[in-house]
């Protein structure tokens, strides 16, 4: 059975503004994809450990030596909006 999804909720979590017809199409498609994906529940019992990385590495350190970093102007060059060498953003607080 296709999986039922609260599209509004998920879109809000994903910070995605979706048109109504996009929501409808996604609801149907994701339901079917998740029905197929739910097959992962058929195998892999509790005693099987999860794997995050197939070729694992841990504690990867570099020598604690300062290196040159990106110059300010280059880091800012792609900014949609900037002021005084800072990224400019719209207000954070939601106000009507």
């Amino acid at each position, binding site marked *: 059975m296709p999986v039922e*999804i609260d*599209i509004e909720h*998920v*879109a809000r*979590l*994903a*910070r*995605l*503004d*979706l*048109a109504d017809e*996009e929501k409808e199409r*996604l609801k149907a*498609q*994701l339901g*079917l*994809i*998740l029905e*197929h*994906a*739910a*097959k*992962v*529940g*058929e*195998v*892999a019992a509790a005693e*099987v*450990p*999860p*794997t*995050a*990385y*197939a*070729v694992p*590495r841990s504690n*990867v350190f*570099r020598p604690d030596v300062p290196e040159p970093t*990106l110059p300010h102007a*280059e*880091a800012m*060059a*792609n*900014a*949609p*909006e900037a002021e005084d060498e800072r*990224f400019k*953003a*719209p*207000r*954070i*607080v*939601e*106000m009507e």
Partner: protein
Amino acid sequence: MTELCDLLASDLSAMMRAGEASAVEVVGSCLGRIEAVDGRVKAFLTLTPEVARERAEALDEHRGNGAPQSPVAGVPIAVKDVLTTQGIRTTCGSRILETYVPPYDATAWVRASGDGAVLVGKTNCDEFAMGSSNENSAFGPVHNPWDLDRVPGGSSGGSAAAVAAGEAIWALGTDTGGSVRQPASLCGVVGLKPTYGLVSRYGLIAFASSLDTVGTFTRSVRDAASLLSSIAGKDDRDATSLDTPYRDYSEGIEQEITGLRIGVVRETFGEGVEPAVAARVREAIDRLAGLEASIEEISLPHADYALSAYYLIAPSEASSNLARYDGMRYGLRVDGKHSVEMMMKTRGAGFGPEVKRRIMLGTYALSAGYFEAFYGQAQKVRTLIIRDYEAAFARFDVLVSPTSPTTAFRIGERVDDPLAMYLSDVFTIPANLAGVPAISIPCGLDEAGLPVGFQITAKVLDEPTLLRVAHALEQALAFSARPPLLEALTPN
């Protein structure tokens, strides 16, 4: 007719060393081919002819000084537009990065460039490397040089098509679930996905971090080995890069494969595999037997679950990685009354349908209440798939299968059916989940004259055996067909 751009990197390198061709002539040949065919193939999003000519001139001058040359030097390369190139627009095939000019180079590209590879342009791809047909590019699809009405595969479709059409001698791509091997298969070229971590991903704009690899497109296995030798190795800027010593991967590829144990993956000859694909792959297996390798069937019992696990793990990681496109520091911004509204509008307008689908899928799979059933289970299935490979490689040196169940399909044929599209990668995905290296080489044509790909998989870091078997089979098959598009070209 054959031009310089139709030759292998190994031939061109030898000719340049012998003074029979210059880097300027070679790059001129590729640029000429781009001029002749790219209006129809549409492999490139950005061309860099001036940079290429300048670089070639500098290399020719340098060669005159008698300095030692890398096999990569002077050979034109195309780079998938998900790998950053300093000062050159890098779009990921997305509206959200349409005007993004990176301030830094990807390590894989910078290493090839350091060895003298000459960039001719950045190649089209599915948006953020999500797709199997190149139809998810915001800038229009790539057309398969073997049949312009068909897809080149994806997501590295532009890189595959460019190499198949002689627009570049070789190319870099990325492979998260098959995005190098599947388009290589559909375009009749060699596509290598190395062991996870062998090639640095610094500057590979992230899709699914536990699966992403940088791979190569070439027209021979030897060229794949040369390009891999140039780009592989530890990079302090990628914490997942493996501490492997430098090696020349072309050394030893000519060794015979007598007595090598080859496992034929039983599950890859079932339902959904086109008869011509199965037939060509079986014939290639007979060739391997003829080279006195030992051939036996093997089962990967959890292969059936790989696709399901992949379509939970990759979108989950993507939903996290793509959270960075928030309209704040780079990329598209669509204004809103406050930050969250700006973010939502920016992402709604900047991402295409497949990227939205995967972000939504991943967000759902990671959300409270569903995490264990979906993402958690998928990570366990991944363990089972790794165990399947471990068991298989205890008995076999390499595993073989078709690369993709079908040859190139028609543009538009699968766009409305995501699940059918996802099935294109059913044989390539397991290698990504297990981190093992795999290669696709052309093994013949179907009845419509479209190339069939043959996949070989080896254990972690056993690229030497992988390339040796691929080279032996390539020599035995002597696949020499060319896209009809090229046969129709008139000499300029």
